[in-house]
């Protein structure tokens, strides 16, 4: 009976893993080499992939700068509306991304509140890299904030107390103690955030169809020319993302997690 339960769990597990891995393998193994070569030589494809990775990186960096202070406040301070703030941070995960795109367009569009304000300085979001970054950041910053918050919360308060009694102020304690002790969580959250950013389609297709990031290019090629033309781009973006993702994960896993000690 015990063995049966174990076998059942293994079988269900295998179904789950297959469900995730088979579509990826079908792209990686089923795309003709000649098509891949053509895609690599296509300026449009290469530019869209570079644009995707670069915009994802910028959105993650801005996310770190904005998100970490928010995570710090939630983790260490008590204030009215903290629960509400945490719910607001989770909103992007809950709403359809096309809806997010519409919401962003209404704010960052040329007639939107912020779009109008920024246009005074010549900054536009609709149909620009700025729009892509805004869209990516909106859907991905939640992961970064939540991972950093959990990292901060899990630091033993005795280290913070020790730092302050040794003469450090709040700022010094943050940079010398809190940040290094939660570095692994921040990196982990950043990787998740970046991964989420480069995979975003819904919000960006509404805010900045052009210049084309890889997910939009895939959609356009599929809707205009069909599966055959979109597959090589999918192959390239999956391969490159996987390689970067695996390298980052390996680096982050090698980082010391001081809480385990």
């Amino acid at each position, binding site marked *: 009976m015990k063995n049966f339960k174990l076998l059942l769990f293994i079988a269900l597990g295998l179904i789950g893993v297959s469900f995730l891995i088979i579509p990826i393998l079908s792209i990686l193994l089923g795309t003709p080499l000649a098509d891949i070569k053509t895609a690599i030589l296509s300026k449009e494809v290469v530019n869209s992939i570079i644009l995707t990775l670069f915009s994802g990186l910028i959105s993650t960096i801005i996310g770190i700068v904005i998100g970490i202070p928010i995570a710090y406040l939630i983790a260490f301070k008590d204030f009215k509306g903290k629960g509400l703030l945490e719910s607001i941070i989770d909103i992007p995960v809950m709403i359809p991304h096309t809806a997010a795109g519409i919401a962003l367009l209404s704010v960052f569009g040329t007639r939107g509140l912020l779009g109008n304000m920024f246009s005074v300085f010549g900054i536009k979001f609709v149909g620009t890299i700025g729009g892509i970054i805004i869209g990516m950041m909106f859907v991905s910053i939640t992961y970064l904030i939540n991972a950093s918050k959990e990292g901060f919360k899990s630091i033993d308060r005795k280290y913070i107390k*020790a730092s302050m009694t*040794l003469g*450090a102020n709040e700022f010094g304690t943050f940079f010398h103690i809190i940040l290094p*002790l939660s570095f692994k969580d921040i990196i982990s959250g950043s990787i998740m955030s970046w991964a989420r950013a480069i995979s975003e389609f819904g919000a960006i297709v509404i805010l900045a169809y052009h210049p084309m990031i890889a997910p939009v290019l895939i959609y356009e090629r599929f809707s205009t020319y069909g599966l055959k033309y979109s597959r090589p781009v999918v192959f390239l973006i999956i391969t490159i993302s996987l390689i970067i993702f695996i390298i980052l994960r390996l680096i982050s896993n090698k980082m010391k997690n001081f809480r385990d000690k």
Partner: protein
Amino acid sequence: MLEINNLSLEVGEFSLQDINFSVTDYTVVLGPTGSGKSLLVEVISGLRKIDSGSIILNNEDITNYDVNKRKIGVLLQDGALFPHMNVMENLKFPLKIAKRQIDTYEIENLADEFGISHLLNRTCQNLSGGEKQRIALLRTMLTKPDALLLDEPLTAIDPSKKYQMQIFLKHFKSRSNIPVIHVTHDFEEAYFLSDHIVVLNNGNVEQIGKPKDIFRHPKSLFVANFVQMENILKVKGIEEGQGIIGNSKIFCHIDKGKEKMFVIRADEIIIADRRFKSSARNFIKMNIKNIYDKGNQVLVELENNDMFLISAITRYSLERMALKKGEEVFAVFKVNSMHSIL
């Protein structure tokens, strides 16, 4: 000198109430778990604000100073060495924060004094409890504090190494000339290390005194129990200087008609096999209930119909008198050995 004046603080259901004491030497704040010791450390160090009262350090009111401006060093329970720094980096931390010039040679010399010079390049994992505390104490002393708080510094140390650390703290105490508050729940540790003891109970100061006073003359039932006072007697005065427990008459400092609680240390009760001429006035006939050999002393439980006493004698006395369970003896003690408590 560190002065705590009328300090009060309410935290949820618990409160520190009107705490008053001053420290010029090595003072141990002694109390059971939940008595408010750690909270007291937090408010004196500035990690927590107080509701009322004041904290004065060397005639300067530091009540509203931020924790990093108080010049009070704090040693937390297990040292709280930063795990992402090695031992040397931990020691340099307060100097780096204060933007003071880091003299590695000076740190190495001090590390030698603290017996940790061989650990300077080690990571903080896998250090023993005692090593961690020595490093943390040196790290704290490098801030050049005007007062020092030690929050249960020996709790996280292996029992077999505790004595060494107590000796180390005793040496440290003789070298340092700043007021030290050492917080603990361990009476023996307090007795061994302190110049003065402040007994804390449920957020209140129960008694302040020299270790011997606390040990011999506890002022309340709580302190008596906490310092493991072996004999606590409830006596009813029948005339001035004489009381009664059941049918047993007791000579003690009591007035007629009054009821009082008295404590007697076990080593102040001697055992005799007969009455003899003595300055001790109390000779109470009792039976030996049990004899416990505790290695360095022998505890003899005595009882009669009215009371139960514990006497501490030497093994030599036990053997010389050939005491046996059930034997009838006299418990002998002086009036002045009986200390009344509130």
